């Protein structure tokens, strides 16, 4: 695979990760509430479960779309993305989340493109009017495009994957089903596969023999555990720091969505998920493991609670989970080891085709000079007419990727910024926040961009 293709894949992965990561709390809320109130939960309650089902149908796709849109096109990009997502949500049968994840960044990009086209024609004083109407009209057009174009496509893709899984099961090649299931999972098609194929077939088998291995195929927490542990031991930067806690949430809480962003950030890790999934399902099948009903969420606790009585059954289930975790850990460790780019190899400034709309002066938590530098740079920008760019100070720990941002930081913090904001970013280094020729360089960049 050439470097440019790998970069493009990583870029797509980063866009998806940046949509999911800020919204993990919503997944945790839905997962935990489902564990308690779902029909197969600890205390089933149909009324409260409506909160979960409506959140899964509307809240999560909207949050993802808004985040994806605002990452690319600012707050207005997020608003247009949310309108666009409604087009997918209202019609997509089972793939609304994936549809919303596509609609979000596309809407953000469209807002930027329309702004670039309109801005030179807008007279002073009419900016707010034009900004709001253009965003509203664009939202309508994109929602219609999503309704009639995007939703049928993602639904067809999900149906295709589901029929692929159904065929593999029919051909008695169950372990290979994970080759389809694991990538589909990280694209949030897990519910489509689980509820569309695995659960109905599993219920039939459980009615006949009292258990089914199909309940373990998608809910096995082993592949996710292995990947998160690999990040914990061999990862870098922010993802390494958070992976240990994420592993606990995934394995004991059963919130699998928490490991999807880690895989999306480096799509080669799909190999680890697939290998772990295949190994786990192969072990389950070989040892005749199964659950009495669907485990929701897929936590090790609920899986063990739904394991049929008998030491052999427990050992078979545990063996499958462990095999998946060990294999995915091994593959993920190799991927992480070979994919890490040392900070010293990173150029200080990366070229970008996206316009600079925001300058973020950043430092560690508690540093006050980045805020002072904002004042100094704003004073310089006052002398430039017709250049509207926001200048803000933000601690490194709060940075998120933004294609339209230019980051300015102290020279010894450049690698820390790269760890926090992976992928291609524009970054300039200063030795002194209060006095730097870099600020004049920024003015020159903004003037060049205007021409």
């Amino acid at each position, binding site marked *: 695979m050439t470097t440019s293709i790998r970069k493009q894949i990583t870029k797509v992965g980063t866009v998806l990760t940046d949509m999911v990561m800020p919204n993990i709390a919503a997944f945790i809320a839905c997962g935990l509430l489902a564990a308690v109130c779902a029909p197969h939960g600890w205390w089933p309650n149909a009324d409260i479960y409506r909160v979960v089902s409506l959140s899964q149908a509307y809240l999560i796709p909207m949050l993802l779309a808004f985040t994806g849109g605002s990452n690319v096109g600012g707050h207005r990009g997020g608003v247009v993305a949310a309108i666009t997502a409604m087009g997918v949500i209202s019609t997509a049968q089972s793939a609304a989340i994936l549809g919303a994840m596509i609609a979000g960044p596309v809407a953000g990009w469209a807002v930027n493109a329309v702004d670039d086209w309109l801005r030179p024609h807008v007279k002073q004083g009419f900016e707010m009017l034009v900004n709001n109407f253009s965003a509203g009209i664009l939202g309508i057009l994109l929602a219609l495009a999503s309704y009639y174009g995007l939703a049928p496509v993602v639904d067809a893709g999900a149906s295709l994957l589901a029929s692929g899984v159904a065929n593999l099961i029919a051909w008695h090649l169950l372990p290979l089903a994970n080759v389809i299931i694991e990538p589909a999972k990280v694209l949030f098609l897990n519910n489509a596969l689980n509820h569309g194929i695995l659960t109905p077939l599993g219920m039939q088998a459980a009615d006949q023999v009292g258990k089914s291995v199909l309940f373990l195929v998608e809910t096995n927490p082993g592949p996710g555990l292995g990947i998160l542990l690999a990040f914990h031991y061999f990862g870098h930067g922010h993802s390494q720091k958070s992976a240990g806690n994420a592993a606990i949430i995934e394995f004991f809480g059963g919130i699998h969505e928490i490991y999807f962003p880690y895989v999306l950030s480096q799509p080669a890790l799909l190999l680890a998920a697939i290998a772990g999934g295949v190994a786990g399902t192969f072990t389950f099948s070989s040892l005749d493991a199964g659950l009495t009903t669907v485990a929701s969420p897929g936590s090790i606790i609920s899986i063990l609670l739904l394991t049929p009585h008998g030491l052999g059954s427990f050992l078979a289930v545990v063996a499958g989970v462990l095999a998946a975790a060990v294999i995915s850990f091994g593959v993920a460790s190799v991927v992480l080891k070979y994919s890490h780019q040392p900070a010293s190899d990173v150029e200080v400034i990366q070229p970008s085709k996206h316009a600079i709309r925001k300058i973020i002066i950043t*430092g560690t938590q*508690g*540093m*006050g*000079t980045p*805020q*002072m530098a904002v*004042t100094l740079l704003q*004073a310089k920008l006052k002398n430039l007419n017709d250049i509207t760019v926001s200048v803000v100070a933000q601690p490194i720990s709060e940075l998120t990727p933004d294609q339209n941002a230019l980051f300015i930081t102290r020279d010894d913090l450049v690698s820390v910024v790269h760890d926090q904001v992976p992928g291609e970013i524009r970054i300039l280094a200063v*030795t*002194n*926040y*209060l*006095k730097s*020729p870099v600020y004049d360089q920024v003015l020159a960049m903004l003037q060049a961009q205007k021409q």
Partner: protein
Amino acid sequence: MIRFWGQPKYAQAERFALELFLREKIGDQWTFPQDFGRFNAKDITTLLQQTVAAVPKAIQMVSINLDQPEFARADYLKALPQLQAQLPEMQLCVELTERPNGVAISALVAAAKVYQAGGLWVCIDDVGTGDNQPELVQALAPYVQEYKFALQNFHDQKDFITLVSPLLQFWREQAQLAGVFFAIEGFENKADLKIATNYQPDIMQGYYFGRPQLIDVS
């Protein structure tokens, strides 16, 4: 022998600058020089250059105090911008003290203009005290980066809080209007911090954060 003693200045939790106080060693004692006028600009800038070389890397700015006569004196107006040009990675700042010396406002404004053109920051020390009253402050505003309010000037007065709060409010607003940084010095305890942080100083300084210490340039 003269040396600078440096007191830290903070921006939020970051120790980013030092205010340098000139002290003269007489016998075994470091003393406050009675007459700053007897030092020439070369003495000061040479020592300042040595001092900058000796401060920690995290320090991004050092400031020195000049009384009105020195602030407007030709040798300082020449030497300090020259030194700033030689120190591209350190921001130099001149703090104009409040001591009344009768120098005309126009001369001080002209001097501030020269310092600004030379890349130095100008700070008006102890605003609202001595000669640094609103008339002079407003005249200097276009060439100034920092207004500094001295909390310690009010510590020995009754009704400290009721006296100091409106003044802090006034000077905070003045700094905001002029687009300059607002500094508060004289933090001595947590109570000061509690009162003064309501006025969102960009820069904080005082014994509570750190006392002046000799900067060894030997």
